[in-house]
């Protein structure tokens, strides 16, 4: 074994119920290098690194650290081997200071020695070029400061191998530059750094070597100096595969939804969508592609009235045979009352779509409990509708009275989609409608969407599988970091083109930076 190998993961396999997250992966991490772990959403990058940091335990395979086989059962085991991971969701206590977070759980001394921590933190900061105030409370920190704190925390604990999970997703370009400078300093100090990312320009800028995963498989590795974004994209998205999803020709296209200059900021004031404009037509399926977190969720929620878009945004909804109406500034109840026929299948089935502890009929009633004049809710029609959904969509359930949480994910999704289309919407929005579903159920869902399209509804399909998007959708809007990086024709585009648009490589996109 080579002397400069810090970590060797051999034949690692990890499955979650039936899904193979990592299949027989072998990966090496060398001392004093920055390794990029590149892949699309769900390609298994984070899962693989979680096994190195003790969050998950591999089903099979071996891990060698400094040439010795090890078993990593907890984050503490990982730290004892000098492996530290900075997760996307920070593991910090909000009401503690930086120093308190750094020494949490270490029990170095019975009585807290915060002065000692301050000195040690200062030393680490001076060495690598961080800036951090040990007495600042986490709730007063910016995202970038919190990330710095996480890095200092693992360094304080003696980590020599640092894993950063999409560290730049939450940073501004200036903060990213600072982070990269620190990473270079750490590399010069002999530390090994793994950066999990899907941003190609960052891979090219910071790393020495790139390893690519796709759908749980190890595709290969290349030295960064000997590759280019095009080659990496090809490795990342792979060759197009044929799925034979039906795509009837759209007919009678009518303008249904005109989104103009839509800008949405989150609670921290970070722009999630900026100046998004597109038009959705009745009678077509409009796909939305993009790396996860590029603003898909905010886009659908803004249309459904769940976001508060910035000044100047406009979402014009034109129902068939009715006046056009502006959706910005209206809440879901208002939109529902005006009878514009908007249906939404959200990403989070039990969080936003359905109530897990309630049965099928009750969940149908969530859509209809306000109808009628009587103070007593009408259960008869929802029951009929529930029966129809069970029959038409072949939902497998012990009975209408079974709480939905006990049903399988596929059946739950059929119920949700069934409920939303039962109201005969003129606009149907679906977010990751087939996530976690088996092949047959997925095809059922595609079929339902095509039916809606044939009826003249505008269907917006947010998806993560490019192969599906390319076969199902008439047109595809590609989002990248909250902007529209391109709108392509689903019939004529190629997978590589969409892949490039997703990772900011079109000329138009670069001009925005």
């Amino acid at each position: 074994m080579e002397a400069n190998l810090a970590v060797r993961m051999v034949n690692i396999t990890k499955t979650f119920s039936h899904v193979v997250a990592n299949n027989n992966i072998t990966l090496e991490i060398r001392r004093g290098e920055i390794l990029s772990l590149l892949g699309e959403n769900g390609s298994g990058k984070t899962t693989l690194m979680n096994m190195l940091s003790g969050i998950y335990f591999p089903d099979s395979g071996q891990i060698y650290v400094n040439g010795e086989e090890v078993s990593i059962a907890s984050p503490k085991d990982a730290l004892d081997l000098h492996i530290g991971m900075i997760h996307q969701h920070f593991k910090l206590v909000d009401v503690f200071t930086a120093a308190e977070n750094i020494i949490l759980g270490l029990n170095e001394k019975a009585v807290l020695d915060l002065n000692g921590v301050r000195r040690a933190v200062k030393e680490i900061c001076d060495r690598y070029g961080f800036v951090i105030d040990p007495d600042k409370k986490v709730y007063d920190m910016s995202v970038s400061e919190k990330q710095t704190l996480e890095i200092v925390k693992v360094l304080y604990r003696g980590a020599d191998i640092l894993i950063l999970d999409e560290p730049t997703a939450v940073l501004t370009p200036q903060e990213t530059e600072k982070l990269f400078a620190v990473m270079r300093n750490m590399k010069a100090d002999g530390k090994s750094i793994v950066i999990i990312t899907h941003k190609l320009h960052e891979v090219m800028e910071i790393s020495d070597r790139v390893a690519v995963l796709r759908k749980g498989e190890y595709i290969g590795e290349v030295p960064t100096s000997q590759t280019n974004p095009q080659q990496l994209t090809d490795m990342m998205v792979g060759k197009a595969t044929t799925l034979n999803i039906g795509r009837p020709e759209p007919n009678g296209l009518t303008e249904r939804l005109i989104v103009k200059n839509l800008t949405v900021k989150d609670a921290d004031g970070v722009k999630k969508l900026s100046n998004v404009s597109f038009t959705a037509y009745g009678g077509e399926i409009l796909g939305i592609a993009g790396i996860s977190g590029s603003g898909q969720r905010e886009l659908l929620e803004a249309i459904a009235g769940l976001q508060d878009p910035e000044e100047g945004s406009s979402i014009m909804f034109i129902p068939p045979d009715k006046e056009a109406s502006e959706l910005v500034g209206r809440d879901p109840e208002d939109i529902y009352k005006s009878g514009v026929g908007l249906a939404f299948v959200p990403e989070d089935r039990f969080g936003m779509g359905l109530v897990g502890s309630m049965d099928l009929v009750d969940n149908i009633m969530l859509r209809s409990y306000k109808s009628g004049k009587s103070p007593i809710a009408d259960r008869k029609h929802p029951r009929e509708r529930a029966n129809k959904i069970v029959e038409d969509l072949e939902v497998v359930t012990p009975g209408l009275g079974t709480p939905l949480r006990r049903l399988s994910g596929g059946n739950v999704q059929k119920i949700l989609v069934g409920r939303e289309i039962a109201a005969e919407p003129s606009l149907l929005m679906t977010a990751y409608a087939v996530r976690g579903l088996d092949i047959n159920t997925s095809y059922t869902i595609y079929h339902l969407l095509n039916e809606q399209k044939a009826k003249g509804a505008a269907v917006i399909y947010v998806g993560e599988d490019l192969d599906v998007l390319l076969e199902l959708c008439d047109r595809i809007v590609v989002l990248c970091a909250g902007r529209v990086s391109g709108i392509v024709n689903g019939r004529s585009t190629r997978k590589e083109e969409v892949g490039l648009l997703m990772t900011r490589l079109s000329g138009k996109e670069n001009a925005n930076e």
Partner: protein
Amino acid sequence: MSQIVSLFQAAVYFGTVILFGAVGEILAEKSGNLNLGVPGIMYMGGIAGLIAAFLYENGTANPVPAVAILVTLAAAFVMSMIGGLIYSVLTITLRANQNVTGLTLTIFGSGFANLFGGNLNKMAGGAGQISVAFTSGVYRTKIPFLSDSTGVFGEMFFFYGFLAYVAIIVALAVKWFLNRTSVGLNLRAVGENPATADAAGINVTKYKYVATCVGAGISGLGGLYYTMDYIKGTWATDGSIEKLGWLAVALVIFATWKPNRAIWGAYLFGLLSWVYYYLPGLTRSSQEIFKMLPYVVTLLVLIVVSLRRSKESQPPASLGLAYFREDR
């Protein structure tokens, strides 16, 4: 003057009971366990101390003060910890709902204690109430010399049994423990963000168990002080421990989870609870309005704290939530 001194003393007697209850509860809540079983636990502590005193006094010809205190303290503390253990097993291991479990424990503790309390009264001769005069006398021994030689000052500050001073010391010790020790820091992390604590290598389950059980033990001492000092070694089945127990829970909120603030808060609650007795011209019904004061003050504190949105005055972030690792 003597009226004011008397009110002050009443406030301290009263405050000591709920100070124990509140400090124990703060410790438990810092681990994320909202233990609403405090009244029941105080009942269990009170009755265990009383039974121990009764058995000791009846079993020994010449009872020794120090032994009487040790026996009763140990009985009350251990019995209260058993109450905390019941709560812990249900909420931490079996992940039962914390509110339901706590309320059930309160009902259980009250029934358990009154069952034995009623029987003790019977065993004591049937004619009247049980009385453990000897042990109670030891608990009520004032600070010698200082209490009668320093005038009004002595009557106000040295006039109480030793548990009144222990309560203050325990409160300050818990404050020091939470803020100045590594274990205290870990405990606070468990109550704030158990997933983070877990990732930092802290045994979340162990911390929750120990904090809840030790907290229950401390709370139970409030029940012991009540039976030995407040009602002078007797047993009353009128449910007044329960009322004090709920005030202890309210005091935790009033003190915004800070033990040092609970000290003066406890005496303030005592003052507000007894002030009706010292105000002239109150009828039976207008008295009741004054008895509301501690609750009104707690409500006001809640409103003020909510309006200020100060991060430092909030309950532990994961208070009331069960933790299991697979959730992350």
